[in-house]
């Protein structure tokens, strides 16, 4: 053992049913590090940290902290020895204020409320660490960035000297990320050691002083600061897979020249949707999509991009205008009727809008195709054998990591859920795929996989409408990019005209 080892997880293994989430892990954190825990989705990062935090119990292995063997059985134990964790999904009570949330579980002196002493202490800590937030506003009224500050302060208030941040950047915008970086430095100055979980190489490069790379439940390497480099990390994360990356650590794809279809697959003609407080609606938008192209829609979130994606499969949303698929008007058609014309959709929020949480993979893959003749016996009974075989095809074609098609879909990781719902689109012959933010929160290898599936469809003469928040990604895979701002179409650019600065400016209304 090296003398300044602070946390030492030794030979940790953990299985969930048949899934081996962690396999003989050795993980060391030194005092004063900002230690990156890097790995693709499903690598086991959260599981490892949940074990350290006492939420999960390991099947094997031991945890040594400050040279002493510990027996952490619950979060109560880990909090006592100075571990604090900000979880991947918010663990605040939405109906309580920040102060109420932070005092939960803490060992206050007083039994009764109000807790003005505690409140002062909390505010003092938040100022000391530069993490100010409104103390008496209900959590549900706050943004993701503020909530995260509150969770960090909660951990610090509990006396954390080791702070685990599980994918803290998922819902942050760039400026909030920069702010978080600054806070990390403050933590270290004040003697707090940090474990920073992420699947983004760019982030560990910017934030971390040492990195442990996890892959498929195994530790690949512990990389000291001097050896941190994009290529090195990509290799460690993905080993046998050969991924070419661009400078921004995004996968490269190959877009061969192909002929466009003679007639457009879809024509969008003068469509409008009246706006409300949640969306600007759409203002008289027209464009065509041809077979053999990927048309990107670039927009800052909340500028009508969701309406564009949705109205194609749900034309009755339109207040005026018309959409044609293969020159056939879709007016008054329901989504299932639109689907029957060779269109399919993967929604923005894969969990909330994309799947039925309680359903199996098979049932979820059938969804949307359930009225097709292929899946019906005697026109009314579902043919489950056929559904199972379609689901197995999707699992195979789209590399969905699952033991079988009957597993509850919510058991899958985000990347695998996305692959499953993308695969669902391909169950029946597909002419137009509308896909909204399919890669958000996914690691590069999955992003690359999804890009290649879109390009494959394009190369076969299919059309893709790719609505995406990340302009870098759009510039990699699109043949054309349409820019949307405040519900208006600001222009459509061909690949040869792609200019990040120009498009970026139009996206913010410049």
């Amino acid at each position, binding site marked *: 053992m090296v003398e300044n080892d602070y946390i030492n997880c030794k030979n940790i293994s953990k299985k969930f049913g048949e899934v081996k989430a962690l396999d003989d892990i050795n993980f060391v954190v030194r005092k004063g590090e900002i230690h990156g825990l890097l790995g693709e989705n499903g690598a086991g990062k959260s599981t490892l940290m949940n074990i350290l935090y006492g939420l999960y119990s390991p099947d094997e292995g031991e945890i040594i902290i400050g040279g002493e063997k510990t027996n952490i059985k619950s979060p109560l134990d880990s*909090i006592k020895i100075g571990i604090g964790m900000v979880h991947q999904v918010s*663990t605040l*009570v939405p109906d309580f204020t920040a102060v109420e949330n932070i005092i939960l*579980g803490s060992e*206050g002196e007083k039994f*009764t409320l109000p807790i003005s002493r505690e409140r002062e202490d909390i505010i003092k800590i938040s100022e000391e660490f530069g993490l100010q937030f409104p103390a008496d506003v209900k959590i549900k009224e706050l943004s993701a960035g503020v909530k995260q500050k509150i969770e960090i302060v909660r951990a610090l208030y509990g006396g954390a000297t080791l702070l685990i941040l599980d994918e803290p950047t998922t819902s942050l915008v760039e400026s909030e990320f920069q702010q978080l970086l600054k806070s990390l430095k403050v933590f270290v100055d004040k003697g707090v050691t940090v474990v920073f979980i992420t699947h983004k190489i760019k982030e560990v490069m910017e934030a971390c002083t040492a990195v442990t790379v996890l892959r498929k439940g195994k530790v690949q390497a512990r990389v000291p600061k001097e050896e941190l480099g994009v290529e090195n990390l990509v290799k460690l994360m993905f080993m046998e897979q050969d991924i070419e990356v661009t400078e921004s650590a995004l996968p490269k794809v190959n877009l061969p020249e192909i002929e466009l279809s003679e007639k457009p697959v879809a024509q969008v003609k003068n469509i409008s949707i009246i706006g409300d407080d949640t969306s600007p609606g759409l203002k008289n938008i027209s464009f065509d999509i041809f077979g053999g192209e990927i048309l990107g829609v670039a927009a800052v979130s909340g500028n009508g991009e969701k309406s564009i994606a949705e109205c194609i499969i749900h034309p009755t949303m339109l207040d005026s205008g018309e959409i044609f698929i293969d020159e056939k008007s879709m007016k008054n058609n329901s989504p299932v009727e639109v689907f029957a014309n060779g269109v399919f959709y993967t929604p923005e929020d894969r969990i909330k809008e994309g799947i039925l949480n309680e359903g199996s993979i098979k049932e979820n893959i059938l969804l949307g195709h359930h009225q097709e003749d292929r899946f019906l016996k005697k026109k009314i009974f579902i043919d489950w054998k056929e559904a199972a075989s379609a689901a197995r095809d999707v699992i195979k074609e789209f590399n969905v990591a699952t033991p079988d098609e009957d597993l509850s879909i919510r058991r899958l990781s985000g990347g695998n859920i996305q692959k499953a719902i993308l695969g669902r689109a391909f169950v029946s012959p597909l002419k137009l795929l509308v896909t909204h933010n399919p890669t958000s929160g996914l690691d590069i290898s999955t992003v690359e996989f999804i890009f290649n599936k879109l390009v494959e469809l394009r190369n076969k003469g299919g059309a893709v409408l790719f609505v995406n928040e990340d302009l870098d990604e759009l510039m990699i895979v699109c043949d054309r990019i349409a820019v949307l701002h405040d519900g208006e179409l600001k222009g459509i650019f061909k690949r040869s005209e792609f200019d990040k600065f120009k498009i970026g400016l139009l996206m913010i209304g410049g």
Partner: protein
Amino acid sequence: MAFITSFISSVMVYTTVYTLASLGILISGRTGVFNVAGEGIMLASASAGFLAAFLSGSWFIGFLAGALMGAFFGLILVFVHETFKVNQFILGICLVIFGSGLSDLIYKLVVGVRLSAPIAPDTPEIIIPLLSKIPVLAGFINQDIIVYFMYGAVIISWWFFYKTKIGLETRAIGENPKAADVVGINVSRRRYLATIIGSSIIGVAGAYLTISITKTYSPDISAGRGFMAIGIAIFASWKPQRAIIGGFIFAFIEVFAFQLQILSDKIPYQFFLMLPFISVLVIMVIYRKHIEFPASVGKPYSRE
């Protein structure tokens, strides 16, 4: 005046039944355990409480037995739910059937068939000097000790949930058990405590029916009030201070319907028996927008 005072007095008696039962339901609901077994608990406790009071000659032992019977049901509910993650509603309905069978069974085993029904000992009344002479107000306070117990239970549980830190933590479990778990609160232990305490309070409500109101046991004595109490807990948005208001409204309707039944001979009496249930529906429809639920109520929680 005298009529109003005595009317309120009867209303308060039933308010006590409804409020205690819904208080018991909302206490465990605040930790996420939706106890729909109230009807069964009330029936079993009505029987057990009555028998204990009758045999011992002590009202207190009667209520103690009722509370213990309730605690026993609560223990079954929470144990089976926490251990096997069985659906709370199915479990609750099973316990209703169990309680309803058990109540008659133990009564028949202990008392058998008699010509004159056994009568429970009196429950002591608390008469506050002077105040008890004031009309209308007297209806609220000239009451037996269990009515005061109900007042106390409402105040204490309101204070507990909104003025103490463990009350705040208890509410946190009902909103988001994971949030409570990650800060070191033992979710399962709190669920056990809340369900057992809540169920014993429902047990007191059941025992009150036989020991104090009718003073004798008859089958199906709670007559659906355990189910109505669920409606009241929901109507009250799981808040003790509103449960007593809800309890009062339903007790008022029940007593009012009973009076009408005596006064009117044209309308079939079944109509009046139906009134409280119809009112629940109507009130729920009117209030539906104002009803809040603890977000995790009815859902099992496990870490992995």
